């Protein structure tokens, strides 16, 4: 399982809130990316947290700076809405783009990105929020705007459109450090054959063990708060993940 550091960025700062609200400054994105790389993370996600306000992604120069010293895959998300935006992101040094709002508005963009740049570069980003009836709805704008899309149906549509990976963020668990939404993960993992990056809620070893106990592991987890607030090091998480992988192989 890959261990990915997720950096949500606002106005040149890495920020972190709880359930995507109450954002606090954490540090400089280029310095943090380098520190996490040197600590051994497998990948870095830069997410523009205010892209929807400005209608564009403002992280390209940060990616350019970060990738001078970071030699692992880089994902960029937030406010990317056209093939030109994707092209600029890749030229800046990103390897993959995470698309949420633009896919909701125009699913054919997903297919266009996959056929022009390859599906390996097209990460379908889903912000899932649990509903009163127990289902999950897809949201945009950092979990603020409902789309009316059922998450499980949306996963199938994204997969059919050509995404190479799915970034599944539980808005309910984001920043809480109270554990993943295991039911959400199991439901989505069961219906997709794409690699799944699970995001939102990791706080302690037992949360990863809880996923593993269910018999399925995501292809990757994206972690923000516990790294930002030094509650766990990438090294700890990677060795835990490796040992769970070995257990799964032996089973």
């Amino acid at each position, binding site marked *: 399982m890959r261990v990915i550091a997720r950096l949500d960025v606002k106005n040149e700062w890495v920020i972190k809130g709880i359930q995507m609200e109450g954002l606090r400054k954490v540090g400089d994105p280029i310095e943090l990316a380098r520190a996490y790389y040197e600590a051994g993370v497998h990948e870095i996600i830069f997410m523009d947290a205010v892209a929807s306000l400005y209608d564009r992604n403002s992280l390209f120069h940060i990616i350019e700076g970060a990738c001078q010293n970071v030699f*692992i895959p880089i994902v960029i998300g937030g406010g990317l809405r056209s093939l030109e935006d994707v092209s600029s992101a*890749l030229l800046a040094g990103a390897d993959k783009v995470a698309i949420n709002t633009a896919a909701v508005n125009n699913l054919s963009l997903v297919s266009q990105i996959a*056929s022009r740049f390859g599906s390996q570069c097209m990460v379908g980003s889903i912000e899932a929020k649990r509903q009163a009836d127990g289902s999950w709805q897809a949201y945009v704008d950092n979990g603020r705007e409902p789309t009316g899309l059922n998450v499980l149906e949306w996963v199938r549509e994204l997969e059919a459109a050509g995404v*190479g990976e799915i970034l599944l963020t539980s808005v309910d668990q984001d920043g809480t450090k109270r554990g993943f939404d295991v039911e959400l993960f199991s439901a989505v993992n069961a219906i997709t054959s794409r690699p799944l990056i699970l995001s939102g809620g990791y706080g302690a070893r037992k949360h990863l063990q809880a996923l593993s106990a269910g018999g399925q592991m995501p292809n990757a987890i994206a972690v923000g708060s516990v790294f930002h607030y030094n509650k766990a090091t990438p090294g700890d998480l990677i060795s835990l993940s490796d040992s769970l992988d070995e257990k799964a192989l032996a089973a």
Partner: protein
Amino acid sequence: MRVGVIDYGAGNLRSVANALHHVGAQPVVSDDAETLLACERLIFPGVGAFAYGKQALVSRGLDRVVSEAAARKTQLLGICVGMQLLFDRSQEFGDHEGLGLIPGEIEAFAPGGGAQPLRLPNVNWLPIAPMSKAGGLAGRLLDGVTERSRFYFVHSYHAQSANPFAVARAQYGGQPFAAAVAKGSIFATQFHPEKSGPDGLKMLKNFVN
């Protein structure tokens, strides 16, 4: 050392260039055949679809750089789709001809025998196992690879591990495949050394030494 990076519009060349800088080489990112062929080493990068890459390469007249480099025995490192394009053909989305510099075919993973279909693309950090025959250029590039080394793979198609030019193998979903191949002055990897942290940088350093 000047290392030409073949720019045919496929992939993240900035990362390759940054990684080359990091290991003390001077990257020359170019789509000009003569500029590239004047370099001491060449990198043939690539991401995306095989057919798109082939067409992009040919339309810029850069397929000639790769075959000319092979003829002149210029050391060339192919990466990911850059590796796959060196083969005779690929089954990705139909049947497409490659550059024919390494005999063999690029094929799909089998769907997988478990309860769940094999998750594709294979997006994982995997160990690789160098094969005993890896001498010469391959031996030099694989120097320092241990069972603890990990490399970043992202692909749905692969060359067979039984290919006579395979020099390192890996496996995914219980299926072995060629992680690296070598023939003459060509060395090529299915994984991305420029995205594989210190283990990948070590391989690039071996390449430019």
